[in-house]
């Protein structure tokens, strides 16, 4: 998904999977800085869902769990906290909660009502949004990272390290059919 020209939303709301992955990359600040849209996260997700990454030494990375601290990004206006607001969003939240976890439902309800894009790597969530809200653009962590790579042109080593961190510290691996799966594998 190209988030440059013609991207139909002013804001992208990040769900918990995406936040964990971006934070694990070690490059979250610089990635957020180059995204040409406002970026948001539901306060519920920040407080209850996107909680930690592994940060032990590379040969035993699970030995230490590090809390995800998004406050510096919020303080620097790189990330805006979003709250469920009004009857329409409350109703959408409850409706979505029938099929989704609360963090995912809150994220979806806000996006649907405010016409924001959703950044998620969760296949079940994506399926639901594609079916029920096809006008909402869905972007993945890899879309955001590729945008950073295309814009800032960091060295291959830096990209490799960021993706490796996601795999090791965030325990995330894109699905084999992910549109950017080959791009990911090229670096790792």
């Amino acid at each position, binding site marked *: 998904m190209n988030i440059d020209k013609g991207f139909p939303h002013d804001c992208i709301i990040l769900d*918990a*999977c995406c936040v*964990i992955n971006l934070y694990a990359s070690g490059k979250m600040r610089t990635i957020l800085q180059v995204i040409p849209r406002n970026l948001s996260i539901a306060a519920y997700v920040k407080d209850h*869902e*996107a*909680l*930690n*990454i*592994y940060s032990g030494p590379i040969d035993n990375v*699970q030995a230490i*769990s590090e809390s995800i601290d998004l406050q510096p990004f919020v303080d620097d206006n790189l990330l805006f906290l979003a709250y*469920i607001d009004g*009857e329409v969003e*409350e*109703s*959408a*939240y*409850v*409706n*979505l*909660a*029938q*099929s*989704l*976890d*609360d*963090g*995912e*439902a809150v994220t979806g309800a806000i996006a*649907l009502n405010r016409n924001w894009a959703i950044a998620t790597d*969760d*296949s*079940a*969530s994506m*399926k639901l949004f594609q079916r*029920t*809200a096809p006008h909402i653009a869905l972007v993945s962590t890899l879309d955001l990272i590729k945008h950073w790579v295309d814009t800032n042109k960091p060295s291959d080593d830096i990209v490799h390290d960021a993706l490796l961190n996601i795999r090791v510290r*965030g*325990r*995330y*691996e894109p699905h084999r059919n992910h549109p950017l799966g080959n791009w990911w594998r090229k670096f790792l």
Partner: protein
Amino acid sequence: MEENILDKLDIRELGRELQLARTKRGLTQADVAQMLDVARTTITAIEKGERRIKPDELIRLAQAYGRQVNDFVRQRPAIEPFQVQFRGPFLRSEDEDKEISIYIDQLEDLSRDYFELEQITNSPLGRKYPNEYSIDGLRVDLAAEDVANQERKRLGLGDGPIPILREILEQDVGLRIFYLAIKPSKYSAMYLYDHKLGGCIGVNLQHPEERRRWSLAHDFGHFLAHRYKPTMFVINNYRRVPQSEQFADYFAAYFLMPTSGLTMRFNDIRKTKEKIVVADLCTLAHYYGVSVEALTLRLEDLKLIPTGVWDRLQEGGFKVREAQAQLGLGDIPSQSSQLPIRYQNLAVLAFENSLITEGQFSHYLRVDRLSARSIAESLRRQRSQASGINSEIDLDLTEAINV
């Protein structure tokens, strides 16, 4: 977005769930009414299913009850609350009620989630339940031995030790077994039966493996002979032990240490030595996966050793753990994860097939998202290692992340 789900839900069922969640949280209707700034009668009407709840009210109630909105609006199997089942036949003091109600709720939630995962993945649990044994009018010890022998035969266990007791009861019988960190430790296990869920057992995770195995066998005995009577297995809880408890204890002894096999093994040891020593008792107990006390009392019962040996050992200050350590007897192999392996596998299956989201996946596994990812990854790795050998391997995934 589609129409409001709250207009479609069965409001009586939702009201009942909300009422249960409130009482589990220890809140009164008046407390909740104050939180929501509504009249108490409004809460009464919602809980009775006489008034449809509004989205904002449900969101605030879920927050107040420490639950997710998802818990109230997703399709869940309706069951009779475990607390209600325990209330009648199991008479507890108010203090005991407070102590254990949280664990009864845990067992209910886990058993219900297990059933839900089976529905999501269309993988019902195979129940190989025998008919309930009738032991009325029989001598308890004889009835227990007879049932234990029949069950061993039915399950193809021969007369040796049962090293994988939990796995057999889960997979070959179809019981739902969870290990819960129950405090205080006088509570060994709880058993109950629901017609949808089948037999459910919660074993105290904090106990040593030999005691957990005894509790499992004990509650299996209840399942066989008193299937519809919920029980809380508490050590030294009775002035006069009821017959059902006597049966379950005898059953555990006979099921874990059958007369024929134990006698044969004991005699094998005796043939090679002049006299039986304490080390032999420790070794034999380890072999059967039972405590030295249970083994010694069973041998006394079989008159293979003199009556009173265990009492004398205790009076002499015998220390079981020290003796086992000196003999180099390691821990009894155990499968002690909170969740059954099949439960974990169903959760991973549902997640990998995009039937549940990552948030739901972590909720089912009772871990945070990162740990849930590690579990899914472990399964993928183990599956790829196992591919090509066409074998079914049960792996405890939560152990992979030290849960």
